């Protein structure tokens, strides 16, 4: 392959960057080694390229970043304020505010503060304490009553279930006539045992309580007791 001075100049960068084909590279070298014009050209450009590559990065002034930010987004204080305001839009902050507000509202309501007719006096610590104390006692008393009522209802229900599951026992257990309270019997019959008599008295008493508590069920209990 023949190589000319024009080719050397045109492909000099490809040669220096290693982009020539092997055959071109060989022809380039052969020509440059024998050409008086091309030898100094390649040497000087190679030297210039080496000097270029040795140039380092120049450090800008430390104030440059700040001056750019000031030119684009305003002064430092304004940027900080905008960043703070932007932070308020985060979901985490919104959830926090909502939960704090809900807690505050709950405490106010529990302390007896009326949102419909708010008074400044209602916010006095002594008033809040007195109302909170009163509310706590009322809630406690209501809870105790509720639990007690539940216990009575459960007791009655369990008794009724017991009787419904085993009616024979019920019939046998309940005496047809009340035994004489007098000690010693003269009619020749065996009196009911004291334990059976007590149970019959309990069932009758419970049915009366249930009838009083649940007037709607009175009819059905009346029918059942008459049977």
């Amino acid at each position, binding site marked *: 392959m023949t190589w000319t001075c024009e080719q050397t100049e045109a492909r000099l*960068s490809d040669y*220096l960057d290693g982009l020539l084909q092997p055959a071109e590279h060989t022809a380039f070298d052969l020509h440059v080694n024998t050409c008086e014009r091309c030898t100094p050209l390649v040497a*000087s450009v190679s030297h210039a390229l080496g000097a*270029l590559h040795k140039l380092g990065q120049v450090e800008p*002034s430390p104030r440059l970043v700040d001056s750019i*930010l000031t030119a684009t987004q305003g002064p430092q204080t304004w940027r900080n304020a905008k960043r703070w305001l932007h932070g308020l839009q985060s979901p985490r902050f919104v959830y926090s505010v909502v939960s704090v507000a809900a807690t505050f509202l709950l405490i106010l309501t529990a302390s007896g503060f009326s949102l419909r007719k708010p008074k400044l006096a209602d916010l006095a610590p002594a008033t809040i304490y007195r109302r909170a104390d009163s509310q706590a006692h009322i809630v406690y008393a209501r809870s105790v009553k509720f639990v007690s009522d539940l216990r009575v209802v459960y007791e009655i229900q369990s008794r009724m279930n017991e009787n419904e599951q085993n009616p024979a026992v019920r019939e046998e257990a309940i005496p047809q006539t009340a035994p004489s309270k007098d000690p010693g019997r003269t009619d020749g019959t065996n009196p009911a045992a004291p334990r059976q008599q007590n149970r019959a008295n309990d069932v009758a008493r419970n049915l009366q309580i249930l009838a009083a508590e649940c007037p709607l069920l009175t009819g059905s209990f009346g029918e059942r007791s008459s049977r």
Partner: protein
Amino acid sequence: MEQDAQLVQQCLQGEGSAWEELVRRHTRRVFNICYRFTGNRAESEDLSQDVFLRIYRTLASYRSAHGGFATWMTSVTRNLLIDHYRRTKRDRVTDSLEDKMPVVENKESAGRRPDEQALLGELSGQVQSALTRLSPELREAVILRDLQQLEYGEIQTILAVPEGTVKSRINRGRIELARVLQQMGVRPA
């Protein structure tokens, strides 16, 4: 590159900290392109500020699908430099004394002997001076290829010219730089 695109998206959503991060990441690069093109520190800082101002205003027009943010930013820088060159062509007669002050370069400066560093500093000043004597077309091609280490494809995108023209400008720029250095008395050892 993906991080830049993400930061741009955050900027467009109004996050000031994302813009601050973009500025911090690219200030040095933009400043260096400006400095190598103008050879003037104060002028380069003003130009860097103008570049970021223009980027800030036109950020919504950036599309990551059309190339990396750095390429787009370099393109904006180059356009602004050419505008500045044309605008100040008549004013460039003399440089101020301040502009002639040596600039500290950080590349491998640590560990060198003072005499070596002085020689290198002198050579750097000569190369910088030679660079500013090139025509703007050749200068920008050499800066992008040999100082910013960009690929031909990226330079083609930035300069908006065919790849053949890019290669030709880089080649002519290097030969012209060597010729100017020889005129300045800088010759290969």
